């Protein structure tokens, strides 16, 4: 299948740079296809930037990077109108958010005000400055990274805003063999420089349209809803997954199905994505922390205990 080939090609492209991180590459592609944004949570130096750059290069997109610092202001992100004395007018100078693929590095280091500006831009795909609204060119994809919150001097993102990210994932350290491979490649120079684009931006937009055509059967929708509801009923969960979360899971699943070359979503897609879609959308009770239960574990348990539909829906 042509579409699948292209998408796999993107994944392979990223893999050339990122050793042993296929599922991260895939998830990024899924998020890109589903027009969602990704939150990468990890320590510095595991290749987050490399990852995003490789993705941007593969789709021939404009890559922008915002390094968040405590003193960064919203205008540093969104852009600013500057008065030009020659023509006596204000000219808008777009900020780094006006790119196709934006890496928002260490988003939790900046003040909540700046964070809010970014997140709003992500949600609306447009920015409003001095009463003028500027839409962000499509495709628009933000990959935000955040240090684990135990680090000093950070402003944790509010839960409500985490909802804006389609997926949250962790990069993790490479395995022993992979790391050796990383070293070997580093000897030969930067592999990122040799990457070429696989598809054009126009093609990417078409693919994004195709995602919407991926079929989701009633039983699978039911399964997604079952999972969401299960998070709301879980004893450790203070705030469960919202209907927006259910939508996110469905969209991501559609994109994943497309990546897998299927024209319909199966429960396997849902199961694969559920931890990445749900884990940042639930708030745990304090008991969970005492019992040492993480959101991922809770979602894992829910997946085990929720019945997978294996029969056709009755109305077909």
């Amino acid at each position, binding site marked *: 299948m042509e579409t699948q080939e292209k998408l796999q090609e993107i994944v392979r492209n990223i893999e050339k740079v990122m050793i042993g991180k296929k599922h991260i590459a895939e998830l990024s592609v899924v998020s890109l296809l589903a027009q969602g944004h990704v939150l990468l949570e990890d320590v510095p130096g595991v290749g987050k930037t490399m990852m995003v750059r490789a993705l941007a290069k593969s789709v021939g997109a404009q890559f922008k990077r915002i390094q968040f610092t405590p003193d960064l202001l919203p205008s540093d992100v969104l852009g600013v109108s500057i008065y030009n004395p020659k023509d006596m007018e204000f000219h808008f100078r777009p900020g780094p958010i006006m790119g196709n693929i934006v890496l928002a590095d260490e988003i939790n280091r900046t003040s909540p005000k700046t964070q809010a500006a970014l997140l709003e831009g992500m949600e609306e795909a447009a920015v409003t400055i001095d009463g003028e609204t500027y839409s962000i060119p499509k495709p628009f994809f933000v990959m935000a990274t955040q240090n684990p919150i135990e680090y000093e001097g950070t402003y944790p993102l509010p839960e409500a805003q985490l909802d804006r990210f389609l997926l949250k994932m962790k990069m993790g350290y490479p395995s022993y063999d992979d790391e050796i491979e990383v070293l070997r490649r580093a000897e030969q120079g930067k592999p990122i420089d040799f990457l070429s684009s696989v598809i054009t931006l126009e093609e990417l937009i078409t693919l994004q349209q195709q995602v919407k055509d991926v079929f989701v*059967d009633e039983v699978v929708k039911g399964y997604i809803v079952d999972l969401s509801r299960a998070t709301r009923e879980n004893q450790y969960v203070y705030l469960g997954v919202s209907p927006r979360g259910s939508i996110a899971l469905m969209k991501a699943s559609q994109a994943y199905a497309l990546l897998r070359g299927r024209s*319909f*979503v199966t*429960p*396997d897609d849902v199961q694969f994505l559920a931890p990445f879609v749900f884990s940042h959308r639930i708030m745990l009770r304090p008991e969970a922390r005492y019992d040492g239960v993480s959101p991922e574990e809770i979602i894992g348990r829910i997946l085990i*205990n929720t019945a997978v*539909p*294996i*029969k*056709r829906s009755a109305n077909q």
Partner: protein
Amino acid sequence: MTNHPIKRTIVLMALYIVIFFMLREWLLPIVDLTNTGHLNLFLLFVAICLLTNIVHLNGWISAVIKFAYILWFLMYVYTGTKVFSIESVLTLSSDIQNSWSALMQKDWNGVENSFRSILFFILLWMTIYLIHYWVTVKHTIIHFLLVTIIFLVLLDTFSEYNAKFAIIRVMFLGLLLLGTLHANRLFETNAVERKGIKYIAVLVPLAVMLIASTVFAYAMPKKGPMVTLPKSLSTLMDQQGKGSSAIGKIGYVEDDKKLGGPFKMDARVVFNAKADSNQYWRIETKDIYTSKGWERKKGDVYVEAFNQNENIPLTIKPGSKIDQTTAEIEMEKDFKFIMQTYGLMNVSNVEPGVSFYREIDGEKIRSLKDEEEIALEAYTISYSSPKYSLKALKKTSTKDLKKLSKDYNTYLQLPKTLPKRVKRLSKDITKDEKSLYGKANAIVDYFKYNNYVYSRDKVAIPGKNDDYVDQFLFDTKMGYCDNFSSSMVVMLRSIGIPARWVKGFSEGEEVQNVEGEQKEFVITNNNAHSWVEAYLPGIGWMSFEPTIGFEGFDNVLDDVKNQQQPTPINPKKEDKEEKQKQQKAEKKKEEKTKEEKQKQEKDKKQAQKEKANEPVMSKKSTMVMATIIGALLVLTLILVLFRRKWIPKAIIALYRMKKPENISIDHAYHQLLKQLDHAGLKKGNGQTLQDYANYVDERLSTTHMSKITSLYEQRIYSNNYTQLDWLEIKESWEYLINRTSG
């Protein structure tokens, strides 16, 4: 398992003791209902089997021991000779050979008892093996307990065996077993060290509760049966239960020591006869009633010799010379005696050198040549049927009986065990008749009008403590000629009229389109018959036909009709009541004569009907029944035990029979899921089909499941509803089912 083999053996032994008693509950009713006997020897076999299992004896050695025991049992019980002598081995082997050939020919009745015992032993053996498997491998005995209870309940319901307390005993033992095995299983799965104290901690409360509830159960009043069986079924079962294992074959046999039991029809021709009219063909009479059947008088047999054409004097004299005629008899069977008609005078037309002798007791006329008994092929008999004057018959009275000579005491013999009610009944039904002839006819009529039924197959065999006649008269009221004739003889004797039991053949069937004056009759084994002769003082011996459905003898000359028809017999001294009674009785009699004819016809029809039904209603003897029930039970058990093996095969066969376009793929797929689940490949609730398929394929090292599953997934999750072709997945589907059922 455990480190203490001795301890384990002790536990096992305790279990097996309980099992032994449960098996005893199986054997008890079988032995009781089938007259099998030797309960202890069977129990010993059970004990041996269990013991070899406990001590883990090598399979071959234990098999040899068991075989030796079976062999010993067979010789000890069946051959009646010295055990393990050549003679006994020979008897046994011929028994087995006969039985085997009978079995092959589906002649179930031809199977010898010894062979049945072998089968029964094998059944026991298998059962015990099964139990052993359950106890040691599966650690459960619930199947056995269930089957035992079902067995007892069935017996309790359908037979005369009373399992009221047996069920309580079995429940007690079964629950004890279940509890112990459950504890055992728990210890094993949780790897608990088996200490005696732990067993006690588990078993003591269990035992206490069981004992308490059992005592309660014993003490509680038992409810009556909730279902009452239709009568026919229960009588049938009773007969099955009481009867011995043999089904008789109709025909003439000399031995009548044990009467009763159903009869098989046999239409083989015995002889053809040409005669003026239909005749009863008499062979012999018997005198001693033993409460089970008839015997000859013991001691020497006195005979009288005659040549052909020489008059043979019998106790029943020929009629007038004018009526003298002949009958030609052509034998098909080798009978070394003469078929007599009533009023027989002599035998002629036989090859020279043949002579005859008549046995004084029994009146059998045997044919003889060169001092050897010989079967004649054809002969002619001269006879003149005797006629009795009704006038004279009506004059016979009980007073004359007192003057009888002691010679007739033989014909008044009755067993001491004869129940008193037989005599009471006889007196009761004959008391209204003054003449002896009238009394005899009253008995004949009694059968006709009191719901006695002629039947050849639903006939009981008297049990150990039953009297043949008593059983027929009061309990079963169902039987054939032997029942009726024996009963009449006994009843006549009980009121002091000498009587004897006669055997021979009834008229036979008249053959159509025969030219000439004489008619031809074909007499088959089906015509074998028995009837009654009574001695009326002043008249002599006279024949009676008590069996309903038979026409009887036309031997009475009605010489009183004209004079006495309307007048009462004894009008003078009777008081009014008596008179009325008599009139009533007479009226009734008139009505009855009408009914009589109808009834006779009916009976005849019924008899014919039964003839027609005969092969369908083939009666099974109890041993066969028991074997079949046992075999069915074992079969059911095997089916249940091996359901994992045969059900999948059946499913595949079922799907093959369907047309591919009619097969629901969803259904097929879920059938497969079920089968895989049974085969131990459990699918988690939250496991996706693809996941599961990968797991299955990995376990079975195939790719079939993934193949089917992706096709099926397309079917249920996509909007692409193109009909999936069954043939596409058939092969993989069958492969997976076969693979997991083997």
